[in-house]
């Protein structure tokens, strides 16, 4: 129920701007670069595509993985992309030259999630081999191998200053790690059910947005208490990425298995909009860093990347 103060302006809805079809299989992830000029999409068709945010056209493809890709991340200066693949490796690509610069090997199973730290000298990855690895970008060596969970790791993210890593797993737990030593600092949730499908820090690093396979929660991790629940969407099976939209009012944006994109008001937790159009589960959403633009990606029946803007 909406009980926050009167908004200064009426909510301006998002609407579809463009449908981008390029991948030949399910699209697993879309992310804007930190400077907002580009966004990249990763797919089970083993490729990544890099698009211009301005013209909404594809600039180039990145090929090289021998199996599908589940996640991607941009470095802070928007020059490098790291992709996590079912072929058990991660690859670092140079987004200027469209070439693969480095392959990170070490995981013994599917690599499912990846992120750069803000300084972009470290990469964190989570895998179906239950471990979280911290890699040195320069040399490609694993600096820490953390036996993080008892089941596949679904999500890893650095906080604002790169000192902490949050990891979520199918084993139902969400844990916080010290990035420099790999030591466990806190366990946020410990129930075996439901699985934690996604976790990320808020932009200021004080809160963690956690998605479990029944609803989405916003936690204050230093007190260990959850503060808000966002529900109404359908998330029973897939690891759907959600995110913060901060360019105008503050929203939580998430995909859903009912093929829609849900937007909730951050404070009031009320649903402000439901974007429909996709024809399969919307598994990933990303918000432009400065403009009111959302890009979403959907699974096999759809295979498209859709761009939504606020009028």
């Amino acid at each position, binding site marked *: 129920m909406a009980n*926050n103060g009167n908004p200064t302006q009426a909510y301006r809805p998002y609407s579809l701007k463009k449908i981008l079809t390029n991948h030949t299989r399910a699209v697993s992830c879309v992310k804007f670069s930190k400077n907002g000029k580009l966004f990249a999409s990763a797919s089970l068709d083993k490729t990544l595509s890099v698009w211009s945010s301005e013209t909404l056209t594809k600039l180039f493809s990145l090929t090289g993985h*021998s199996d599908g890709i589940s996640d991607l991340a941009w470095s802070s*200066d928007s020059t490098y992309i790291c992709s996590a693949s079912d072929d*058990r*490796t991660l690859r670092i690509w140079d987004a200027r030259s469209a070439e693969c*610069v*480095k*392959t990170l*090997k*070490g*995981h*013994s199973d599917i690599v499912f999630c990846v992120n750069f730290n803000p*300084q*972009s*000298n*470290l990469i964190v990855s989570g895998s179906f*081999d239950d*471990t979280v*690895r911290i890699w*040195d*970008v*320069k*040399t*490609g*060596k*694993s*600096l*820490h*191998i953390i*036996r*993080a969970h008892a089941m596949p790791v679904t999500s890893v993210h650095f906080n*604002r200053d790169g*000192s*902490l890593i949050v990891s979520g797993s199918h*084993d139902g737990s969400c844990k*916080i*790690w*010290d990035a*420099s*030593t*790999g*030591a466990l*600092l*806190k*366990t*946020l*949730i410990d129930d075996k059910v439901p699985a934690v499908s996604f976790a990320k820090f*808020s932009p*200021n*690093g004080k*809160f963690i947005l956690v998605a479990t396979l029944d609803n989405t929660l*916003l936690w204050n991790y230093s007190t260990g*208490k959850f*503060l808000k629940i966002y529900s109404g969407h359908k998330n029973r099976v897939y690891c759907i990425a959600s995110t913060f939209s*901060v360019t105008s009012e*503050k929203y939580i944006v998430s995909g859903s298995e009912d093929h829609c994109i849900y937007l909730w008001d*951050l*404070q*009031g*937790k009320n649903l402000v909009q439901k974007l429909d159009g996709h024809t399969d589960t919307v598994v990933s959403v990303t918000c432009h860093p400065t403009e009111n633009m959302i890009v979403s990606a959907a699974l096999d029946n759809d295979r498209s990347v859709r761009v939504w803007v606020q009028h």
Partner: protein
Amino acid sequence: MNAPIIDPLQGDFPEVIEEYLEHGVMKCIAFNRRGTLLAAGCSDGSCVIWDFETRGIAKELRDKDCVAAITSVCWSKYGHRILVSSADKSLTLWDVVKEERIARTTLPQTPLQARLHPGSSTPSICLACPFSSAPMIVDMNTGNTTVLPVSISDTGNGVVPPSRNRFSDGSAPFSPTAACFNKYGDLVYVGNSKGELLIVDHKNVLICGIVPVPGNAVIKNMVFSRNGQYLLTNSNDRTIRIYENLLPLKGGLKFLEESNHAGDEQDGFEKLKAVGSRCLALFREFQDSITKVHWKAPCFSGDGEWVIGGSASKGEHKIYIWDKAGHLVKILEGPKEALIDLAWHPVHPIVVSVSLTGLVYIWAKDYTENWSAFAPDFKELEENEEYVEREDEFDLMPETEKVKESDVDEDEEIDIMGVEKDSAFSDSDMSQGEICFLPADPSPDVPEPQDKFVGSNSKQGDSNQSVSALSEEAGQSGRLTSHISTPLEAMDNSAAEDNGGTSSRRNRRASEVM
């Protein structure tokens, strides 16, 4: 930051050697302002910048004109420039990001220490302490040097005729002097061979105040704490002294000038001593009264709460840690190699020491298991607490089944964007574009035959795969700690992968701790 969930029970100083860094023979070290980069001067004239987070080399500053050992290295305030002094009598100023040499000057004598002016983000003037003559201000752009006074002349007006300090006339004695800038660089504090602390206005080359140090022993080192409130002196009488800075941090010079005009009519030396007593007050003295060891490279911790000093005895690598009240809290003991330089990390409880062999040891807190981290509602207790159960604790009352209470106000406004200013860096001016890290460009892979994963589902991995998570601990010698914890539910903690390889790779060595 992660401050709220780190266990506050442990003291904030390091305890064991965590790693060592190896690259050629390193001689001196300096952290940048935030401790994300560590610059190390080497015996071959190059300066290596380590990324302290990855413990890998971020940059190497090498100049073909300089091949003599580096005697000191100093960062500019926001990390844009590095000044190195070398045994070939030169000072070189580097632009860190561009890896270019900005300027180079040669002095009449080898500078043992050189410090950039701390008040500017692109400083070109520096304070150099040569081997056996008075410290001087050097303008790196023009090469001009201004020798600073080290003692009161007989005329007593506080200004020393320049010829007094020239080594060439033979009359000036061997007078090693220590000197340092205050926090904003408007004053230079000089310690002379008569055991006097001089407060010098370096622009006008004028001694403003004098503080005689008890014991009158030669002063070897001087350094201010990061917040500029305490000054440390290391004297030949084997004593480290801490002085409290009574001047205001900003505009200390102006304050001195104003109070001078209002001063009493005393003759030169007494007047300067009176002024000096208004600038510095002796706060603490540290010494080892049993071994009476000389101290090497003493300095403050980042927050000024601790003082460390290395033992200058050749056969040992000992670091003494005192708290500000004067208590010796720890002696860190490393391998039997002399210690030649020491630095405390600006933010973390980490100490870095350089040994005579050229290795840089990183000392950190001993990793202890945080048991309360394993479950959300675990809490660590310092000691056993008696638990008295409630009267109805074990009663079965189905109607009042425990509901997951949320005593949190779910309507509370949450701020996901606001960031607090980091109090440890209160004077940072973000418009200066501080360099906190150097961009890490992945070094390209050596091309190898394409790995074939098609149709292979086994977890064994093929020969191209590097060490798997299960076997990374095998066969690594010299490992200090392996983080194994009792699993609650088959959840182990991290174990770092060690790789041999190039000489700049990190390694571990055992250490004894007292």
